[in-house]
Structure formats: C-alpha cells, structure tokens
C-alpha cells in the first residue's frame, strides 16, 4: 500500500523542478510565450534529450516507457511555473498512436515524438465543443481505397508548432460511436492549414485546423475505419487527467504566490495575511488543491492499470479541478488588490491558466454529469 510516488519519480520531480527554476522563471516564461509558437524550441530540445518528452513512449520506439503517473510528476512541475510547451499535446498524440496504430505506424511516428524532433497534437473538437460521439461531425468522403476530409477542427492546442495532427473524424454518417476514425495528418500536406488565434493564456496557444481535401489512406489511418471511438474516449480521459495534473501545479504556484504576498503586504499596520478574510480563503484553496491532487493522482494510476473505475476517477478529478480553479484564480487576483490586476504582475497569469483549464477536455458540469451517470445516480 503506497499512495505516493516512487523514489525514482521523486528524483525526476527534483530534476524537473531544478531545470525549470533555472531555465523558466516567470519572466522567462513570458518571453518564451511571446515567441512565434509560444514556447522555447531550445528548452524543448534539452528536455527531449533528458527523456522527458517521450516519457510514456515504449523503449522500443525511443521513449522512457513510463506510465501516466510519472507524467503527472512532470506536468505538475511544468504547471507550477506555467511553463509553456506542447508536452500534453505530444503525449496525447503518442498515446493515440500507441493505442490504435499498427507496428509500422508506431515505427514511423513514435521515434520522432520520443526524441522531440517532431511535434504532434490531437485535433478532437469541432464547433459544437462536445466530448461525446455527437461532437464529431467531420465526415470523410470515400475516395477509392481511401477517404477525403473537408472541414474544420476547433481549439486545437499547439497546432501552430505541430508537425503532426492526430485528427478525429467520421468515416460513416451517424451520431453514435460507430464510424469514428483517427488519422495522422502531416503539416504541409495539401489542404492542411492552421489558423492560429490570439489566446487569453499566452502560454497556451489555440488554433483552428482546416482540412480542405486532405486524403487519408490506410498508411495514416490508425486502425480500421470507424473503429476509433474507444481510442478517442481514452484520449479524452488521458487529456483530462494530464491537464488536471498540470493544474495541480499551477494551483499550487498561484497559491504560493498569493500566500507570499499576504505575508509581505502590510495594511492598517499588519501583514494582510493576519486577517481571517485573507487567511481563510487561502486555507480553503489549500484544501481544494490537496483534494483534487489526490483525485488526479488516483485517476492517473487507474488509467495506467486500466482499472474498472478509471473513467469515473478521471471525471471526479477534472470536475473538482474545473469547479474550483477559476475561483482560486479570481481570489488570487482579488487578494492582491490593484497590483494583482496589472499586466506586469504574475498572479493574473494564474487566473488565465485556470480559465484555460476549465473547459479543456470537459468542464465541471460535463464531468459531474458523467460521475453521476457512471455512479448510478
């Protein structure tokens, strides 16, 4: 019985934290986030070399073959200082290929993802912003022994930096899980274009991916046409878990910043952290972070083990996090007073991150409804 991390994982945590403290303090994060693709290619290379980018990819394809629990450690640390990078997108794309791809496809795509030389993301959502099979309406037209895609995928993370897109679409019309397919589409191919949008959280870039007559054949389709829903559903769960793990870190980072401010800032003759009106909200935040942290750890473990309660565990974690994070961000800014509201001061970055996290892979309402359904309520 051990609901904690292994010694190896704790060492990894220490290394990541040291690396990011050194290379990505918040002033540096702001600079990196303003780069073309919103992150530092140089740090990406160095992290790839350290094995952190391909953490969950099998050793056979150049990865470290760790579980999601180990990814949680990495992402918690990345979240703490709002480190911008396509780590989550890369992991999700790799997971999709690992789950649904043929040996040949794994051989073709995974090594580049493991060594960070190529960047990948997943293109799941459409304008309906739904997480059920009904949300996938992009319908492929049959074309000889292949299919042709014409349409748009919305809110695609890290798309402007990505070389590969794992795209979800329908091979046959309908509304249920049948007929849903996945394909790996390369940037630069005919008909593939990316519209990058200005994002509220500068460390998290979003784009629209337009597919205008993109051909999919067996070589790039992951598995048989129409068979991909179980993989997509799994990717939704992994995505929700990784985003929550990263949010544990950012929540702790924001809480630490506000707590430090409350100790230093003096008003009416004493540090504002003495007043229960400041102290109690901070205590409540701590309770919430520790709680969705426990839920997120367990969700990662349950996914790694393919446990029966993995889906409900994921939804509990993401629901709790999505529910409380924006309030924590708002409180952080409010407790700072005027300074917290300026562009120059960092606490507002945590509010923006919290709001980015909320809808990602399903908001609180979506996941609570799922907990209710799975829990037999």
């Amino acid at each position, binding site marked *: 019985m051990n609901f904690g991390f292994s010694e190896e994982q704790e060492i990894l945590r220490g290394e990541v934290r040291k690396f990011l403290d050194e290379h990505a303090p918040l002033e540096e994060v702001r600079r990196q986030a303003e780069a073309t693709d919103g992150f530092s290619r140089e740090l990406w290379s160095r992290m790839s070399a350290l094995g952190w980018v391909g953490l969950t990819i099998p050793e056979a394809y150049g990865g470290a073959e760790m579980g999601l629990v180990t990814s949680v450690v990495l992402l918690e640390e990345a979240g703490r200082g709002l480190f911008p990078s396509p780590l989550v997108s890369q992991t999700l794309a790799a997971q999709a290929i690992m789950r649904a791809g043929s040996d040949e496809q794994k051989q073709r795509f995974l090594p580049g993802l493991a060594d960070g030389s190529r960047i990948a993301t997943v293109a799941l*959502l459409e304008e*309906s*912003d*739904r997480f*059920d099979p*009904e949300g996938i309406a992009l319908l492929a037209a049959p074309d000889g022994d292949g299919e042709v895609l014409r349409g748009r995928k*919305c*809110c695609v993370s890290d798309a402007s930096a990505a070389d590969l897109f794992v795209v979800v679409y329908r091979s046959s019309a309908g509304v249920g899980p049948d007929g849903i397919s996945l394909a790996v589409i390369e940037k630069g191919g005919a008909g593939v274009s990316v*519209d990058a*949008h*200005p*994002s*509220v*959280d500068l460390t*998290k870039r*979003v784009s*629209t991916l337009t597919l205008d007559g993109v051909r999919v054949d067996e070589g790039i389709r992951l598995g048989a046409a129409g068979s991909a829903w179980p993989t997509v559903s799994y990717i939704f769960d992994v995505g929700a878990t990784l985003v929550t793990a990263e949010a544990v870190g950012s929540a702790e980072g924001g809480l630490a910043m506000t707590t430090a401010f409350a100790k230093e*800032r*003096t*008003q*009416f003759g004493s540090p504002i952290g003495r*007043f229960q*009106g*400041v102290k109690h909200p901070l205590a409540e935040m701590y309770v919430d972070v520790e709680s969705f942290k426990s839920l997120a750890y367990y969700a990662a473990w349950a996914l790694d083990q393919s446990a029966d309660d993995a889906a409900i565990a994921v939804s509990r974690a993401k629901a709790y996090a999505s529910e409380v994070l*924006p309030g924590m961000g*708002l409180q952080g*800014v*409010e407790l700072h*007073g*005027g*300074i*917290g*509201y*300026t*562009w*120059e001061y960092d606490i*507002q970055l945590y*509010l*923006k991150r919290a*709001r*980015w996290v*909320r*809808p*990602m892979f399903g*908001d609180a*309402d979506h996941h609570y409804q799922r907990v209710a359904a799975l829990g037999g309520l």
Partner: protein
Amino acid sequence: MDFELSPEEEAFRDEVRRFLDENLPPVEERKPEFEGEWQRKVRDKRWVGFSWPSDVGGGGGSIMEQVILKEEMSDRRAPSLGTCFMGLAWVGPSIIHYGNETQKQRFIPEILDGKYQWCTGYSEPGSGSDLASLQCKAVREGDEYVVNGQKIWTSLAPWAEWIILLVRTSSDGPAKHDGITCLLVPMKSPGVDVRPIKNMAGSAVFAEVFFDNVRVPAENRLGEEGQGWQVTVSALASERSSISEVQGLVRRYAELKELAQTTQKNGRPASAHGPLRARLVRVETRIEAMRLNGLRFLTKQLKGEKLGSETSINKLHRANLEIEMGEIALEICGNAASVASGEATPGGGKWQHFSLSWPEVVIGGGTPNIQRNIIAERILGLPKD
C-alpha cells in the same frame, strides 16, 4: 408605498424624453459630429453638473430629477452628460464644498464645459485600501508647496491637464488623516511624470504618476492645510448613487441572456442547461434586488436622510455579479473562451475582455473585504480588527 412620480416630476421626465426624441439619434445613426453638438445642447440645458447648485452654473436638480435624468439617458444609451469625467465626478464637488471664490470661478465653468480632463491622485502603492496611510509629501516653501512622491491607479492621467492630489503635509497629528492636504496641480508642471499601467486585459486605463520636486503655488491648495481628508470624503460621498450601476448590470445581463440563448451546449441552448440556467436566474434576481435596494436608499434620501454605509450592500452585490457574469459567459463559450478575439469565439472576445476587467469595479471601488468590514463595523457595530 408609491412608485408614481409627482406631476412636477412627470413634467420633467416628459421634458427629458422630448429632448431625447428631438436630439438623440439611435446609436447606429450617430455621426462623428454628433458628440460635440450633443455636449453643447446638454450644457445649454444645464444638465451637465445637474446635481450642482445653480449659483456655480450647475443644474440645481433635485434628487428625484437627477434620478429621472440618469434613467432616461441610460435607457436611451445617450452619451455622457459632459466630458470632463473626473472633474464632474470628483473634483467639482470638492471645489464646490471647499474651494474659495477664485477657485470656483476658475475651475467650475471649465469642468462644466469640458475644456480639459482632470485626474485624481489619491491611491499610492503602499496605501491600497488604507488610503489614509499615504506618503506622497508636500513641504511648504514660501508661497509654494514642493511635492515628492508617487500616485498609482490614476485613471486618464495621460490625457489630463490637472490632477487633484492628496499629499502629506504633516505626520504629527494624532490620527493619520490629520496631516493630509489637497492640492490642485497642473500635469504640465516640471517634475510630473506619467507612466501608464497596462491591466491584465491588456489595456492601459490606469497610470502611475511620479512627483519629483514639483512646485505648486499655495493658492492651488483646496481647503485648509490638514483638511485634505474631509475634502476627499465629501467627494467620495458624492459617488454613492447606484442607479446607473444597476442599469449597466441590467444591460450586461441582457447580453449574457442572449449569449446563453444563442449558444448551443450539447445540442440545446446553454440557457436550457440546468446549472447555467440556475446561475443566470440567480444573477437576474440579485440585479433586481439591487434595483429595489437602490429605491429604498433613494426613498431615504428623498426624506432628507443621509445615506451611510448601507451603500456597501449594493457594492458587494455588484462585485459578485460582475465576476459571476463573466464566469458564466466564459463557461457558455466553452473551449472557445481560450481564444482572446476574432471570429472563433462568441462575441469576438468581448466576454474575455469583460471577464478580465472586473477588478476596476471590484478592487477599484473598495475590495469586497473592505465592504464587509464597513457593514460589520459601521452597521452591525462589531469591533474593529
């Protein structure tokens, strides 16, 4: 109880409405030259500074007439009455109460005519909600004060020609308030330096203002030395009416309702979606409670009583509602809320901007914790911390 207007009030409302019918085109038809004409006309009606006494050039309007005028203007989305925003809101009332004749004659007409902008130099980096702890210092040298120090959260500073400034002229008094003096300072004075502050929404609506040996003629002192605190409090008191706040919230709620009704969530309008629907109607109910609270306060004023700390009730509501409406809107937008602007997000990003702008109201008007302290200490009589 009686929500009718008196015949005189009805007549005034009709006059306002007639004026608006004749002079106010719908928003989409207003041309660039309209604004100037409008300001001339409302100035001629004496509706700029409508609450100020007639003898200084104000409108001398009764409380009820002020309410009527504000409501009608707001209903029809008329431009502001006057363009010297801070002058009308803060500086004018202070000068009327505490200024000498020369100051009144010099400044009041120009404020009413909107000749230039004023800004207010009250807050400092170290003072926050504890305004009386301010440090910006003025030393008397002959006929001048020499000012050194810094102000922050000064709206409109880059465009202002004058600043109304609170400075510390003494640290000896028994209370922190006692050594504070109020000066009227030209922004062009040598040694004044303005640095805009960008807020988290990316706009620069505030500035820091630095004073480095700025020399201010003693005749520009408003009120007596050490009286600066009262001078400010009188202006703060004039800030209290909340009618137009409520109308702003009502309009915002109407936009939010439209967003909820026109955005699909899992195949149904977001407004039909249980939890969002519950939150929307909770907001609607609180806005109506604010409106009615405001009418109870107004009734008190009409009976000749002064308003006290009860105005904090609506300030707390407003703070909650500004924040909550932003959060509801973002939740409705879903993942598209991460997009800052453009066609890929409902409303083109206005909800994102709105949801990053609440601190102007929530922090600027006194933080919610300050409002809670005011209610607890001044109304409920609980001991100070």
